[in-house]
């Protein structure tokens, strides 16, 4: 019951960066929102795995939590390179 309510609160918190993405036009603000959503989704998966007592979901959550940041870093690096080149 308590964990369910926590889950609802986390889903509401997940809406905050999605709203930021709609509102803010700056690319780096959007990257921050992306990082926020990726981390929150992974933590949500971990909470659901505890809620359902399902180890398989838990392993997936851990892998997504660790891999999501790698993709984020690659994308950020390419965008930064593009900004450097655009100003030459």
């Amino acid at each position, binding site marked *: 019951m308590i964990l369910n309510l926590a889950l609802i609160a986390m889903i509401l918190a997940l809406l905050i960066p999605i709203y930021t993405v709609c509102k803010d036009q700056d690319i780096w603000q959007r990257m921050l*929102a*992306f990082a926020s*959503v990726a981390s929150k989704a992974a933590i*949500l*998966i971990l909470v659901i795995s505890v809620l359902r007592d399902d180890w398989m979901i838990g392993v997936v959550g851990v892998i997504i939590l660790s*891999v999501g940041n790698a993709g984020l870093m690659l*994308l950020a690096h390419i965008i930064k390179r*593009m900004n450097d080149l*655009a100003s030459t």
Partner: protein
Amino acid sequence: MCWPIVLVLVTEVAVTDSYVYVLTALLPLTASILVTQANPYHALVLRGILGAVAALVYTVLGAADVALTEALVGTMLAITLYAVAVRSSLVMRLGVLKEAIPDWRAASKSDDALVALQQADQANAEQPSFAPLLSDLRTVCGKHHLRLELVSYPDSQALQQALVDKEIHAALRVEHKDRYFSESGFEPNSERINLHSESFCSLCIRIRRLYDILQAELTSPAASLTYVDLATSPEVGPVLASVGEQQP
């Protein structure tokens, strides 16, 4: 007043497994935000968010293997490949002569290149410069999410050859205005003689769409645009020679 109702609703949602529906509703929400993006880089970031939400939904619905594949391939690999593709395709390569850009490579930082161009222009008024045109081009390109890349060539022959070989999308030449008018057969009147020190830029473009965009949106007065169709006239030499004669 309505707080007890909200609390009862939330409790009911929490007691049953209905948070699955709330999570599933996030998927069309982020997807609809994604398809309304105009900037490709913003769309890539949104694609990452969509991938994260999709992995979450797949996990909640019990497909852990699909969620893992979505997170690894769909989010990380697809975004990286698309970022490389967008970055290498959305670019306008502009060929210029090395002598026309005296110190732009010598500038320490990339941000200082334009400043160095302007300073060189002020220091030597006789030497033509295309710094204002370059900033105009950058503005137009930025509006269409294009990146402007300058490619320097040692002489006009190499510049022509690069345009024919499709190494560059456009060639930029700088010359004096009075020289252009006298070569074109115009009689130089007093007003044009007064403009003697102004530099004149001619832009030779081989992409029709690029030419249309620049023709419509480029506001710089000291630039003439020429479209070269390489398919019908493979010899671009006369066109380039007529619009961009070497400096005396």
